[in-house]
């Protein structure tokens, strides 16, 4: 018997609600750049390992922890960690769930404004790469560097305010307008329905990229098939790397030859980058899912919802983002150009050339639609990044929503101006993304996994996760989340400390901009720790300590 149409409509709407929130800048901009920097095809091995053993299990654990904490009436990461861990230490470790979305927002909103800026430029004809295809690459790079001020620090704020700073201010104001007026759900729901249009746009661009053939006959090797090969062929991380790795440490060590693609598997930074990318694009290890899940009812599903969001995200990332930007970068910038890039800027340096090859006016129309859709996808993510901090400020300080928004606006505004000012080579942005968007996310994921699997108890957690679930957690999940995931994360962090920590410390000590950026992270962290201490006293005074004695039952009316 056929199902009523309304039921199908509701289910499709629900799929869009889950999927719409999953897609962001990480899929189309960060993923291709990160893959290109970390060995192209070889990167996909640690990437899929990270998806299966880190991304999906941690996603499920975050939804479960958030839903559990919400039953006590808490919505912020420190308070929920306090409930789960029953100790003050866990509450303070919850600071990671605040630093990450706040600091990522500081640079994410800037990249979001670049998307808006590019869309505006396409609409008004501001991007003109000329008529000579041989000049497209230079003109595209020149436009991007001028637009973001990548040639000099302070360029964007010297003399007259640069147009891209004005666009950033507008985008920043739009974000806080929606949050301040409490109507962010409205824009998120709108974006949810705009997602299919985004997918259509991405398919159009994908088809154009795959039909480009050999755009420059003088460089026959730079063709589409080789572009796909650059993305998917397993190969060493970089040819210039001369050291041999002894991996793993101890009696089972194997000597890897840097000339083969197996070398990529011996590079901790590649595994860190893969894990960081999975976490970034799934918003796992962000503190965002925990916050949103805390508003769910006990009978709400977290298993199928989490997996559907993950699958949709992967579709946009691997099947669309991965097939568009990297082959395009290879076609127009060559191997060196595609590798020598920051995490986010690859798309801005290559896609305008693709749109130019579409001919006019189609190139302009698709260029506008693509970057505008990217902006819409980004704004849903940036609004969701603000929510955990607002929930925390409301809970910790007892301020109303508007007070919390004002404090958060001041903090993120200062941080974002800092990133704009230190624009030379996008050094501040890249350092924040490397530290917070890669390393700190892995640290938070480790803390969460230990809390979920070892402190809270995996048996109890699985039972709670399966409550109301449309699909039960796999039987292997308890073993994976208790042993495999934490071992994977700890091993990765250990290897990173062994091979990259010294380089990281040297970078901080030797470069003033990097040092200042590091200090920005420290200042924000200290500020939030103080607020957690204030919040802890407040919760105790209200006799709703998030670290209650064992045996305390969840509040019945806490969650919506």
């Amino acid at each position: 018997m056929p199902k009523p149409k309304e039921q199908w409509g509701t289910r499709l709407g629900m799929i869009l609600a889950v999927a719409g929130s999953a897609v962001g800048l990480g899929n189309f901009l960060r993923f291709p750049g990160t893959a290109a920097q970390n060995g192209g095809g070889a990167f996909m091995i640690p990437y899929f390992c990270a998806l299966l053993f880190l991304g999906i299990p941690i996603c499920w654990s975050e939804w479960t922890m958030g839903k559990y904490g919400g039953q006590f009436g808490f919505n912020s990461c420190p308070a929920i960690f306090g409930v789960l861990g029953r100790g003050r230490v866990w509450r303070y470790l919850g600071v990671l769930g605040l630093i990450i979305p706040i600091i990522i927002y500081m640079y994410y909103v800037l990249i979001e404004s670049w998307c808006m800026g590019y869309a505006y430029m396409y609409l008004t004809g501001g991007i003109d790469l000329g008529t000579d295809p041989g000049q497209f690459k230079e003109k595209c790079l020149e436009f991007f560097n001028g637009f973001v001020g990548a040639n000099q620090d302070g360029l964007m704020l010297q003399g007259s305010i640069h147009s891209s700073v004005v666009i950033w201010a507008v985008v920043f104001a739009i974000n806080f307008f929606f949050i301040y007026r409490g109507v962010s759900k409205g824009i998120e729901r709108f974006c949810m329905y705009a997602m299919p249009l985004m997918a259509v746009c991405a398919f159009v661009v994908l088809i154009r990229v795959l039909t480009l053939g050999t755009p420059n006959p003088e460089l026959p090797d730079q063709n589409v098939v080789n572009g796909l090969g650059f993305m998917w062929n397993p190969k060493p991380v970089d040819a210039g790397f001369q050291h041999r790795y002894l991996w793993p440490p101890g009696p089972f060590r194997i000597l890897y030859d840097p000339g083969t693609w197996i070398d990529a598997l011996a590079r901790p930074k590649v595994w860190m980058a893969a894990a960081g990318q999975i976490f970034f694009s799934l918003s796992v290890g962000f503190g965002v899912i925990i916050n949103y899940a805390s508003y769910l009812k006990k009978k709400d599903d977290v298993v199928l919802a989490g997996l559907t969001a993950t699958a949709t995200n992967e579709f946009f990332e691997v099947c669309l983002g991965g097939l568009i930007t990297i082959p395009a970068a290879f076609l127009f910038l060559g191997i060196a150009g595609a590798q020598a890039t920051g995490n986010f800027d690859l798309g801005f340096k290559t896609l305008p050339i693709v749109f130019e090859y579409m001919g006019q006016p189609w190139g302009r129309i698709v260029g506008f639609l693509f970057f505008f859709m990217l902006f819409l996808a980004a704004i849903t993510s940036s609004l969701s990044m603000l929510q955990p901090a607002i929930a925390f400020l409301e809970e910790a300080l007892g301020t109303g929503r508007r007070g919390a928004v004002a404090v958060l606006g001041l903090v993120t505004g200062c941080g974002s101006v800092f990133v704009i000012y230190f624009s030379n080579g996008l050094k501040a942005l890249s350092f924040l993304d490397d530290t917070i968007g890669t390393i700190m996310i892995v640290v938070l994921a480790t803390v969460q996994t230990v809390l979920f699997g070892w402190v809270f108890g995996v048996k109890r957690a699985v039972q709670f996760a399966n409550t109301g679930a449309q699909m039960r957690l796999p039987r292997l999940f308890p073993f994976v989340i208790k042993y495999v995931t934490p071992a994977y994360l700890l091993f990765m962090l250990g290897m990173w400390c062994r091979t990259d920590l010294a380089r990281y410390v040297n970078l901080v000590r030797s470069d003033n901009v990097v040092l200042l950026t590091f200090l920005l992270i420290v200042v924000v962290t200290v500020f939030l720790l103080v607020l957690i201490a204030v919040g802890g006293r407040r919760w105790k005074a209200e006799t709703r300590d998030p670290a209650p004695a064992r045996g305390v039952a969840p509040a019945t009316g806490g969650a919506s």
Partner: protein
Amino acid sequence: MTLAGWIFMVLSIGFVVSLISFCFLKVLSEPSAANHMHGPADIDTHDLDT
């Protein structure tokens, strides 16, 4: 593009397409899925309450 590259590409895309198909089929075939599944976009965070 090498044979290994084609294999990596086909397996990766095949895996992702299979995963998304499984999820969507599961959602569309479960009668009560729409009532109990939520994404951040439709979770009420009580924005208008304070």
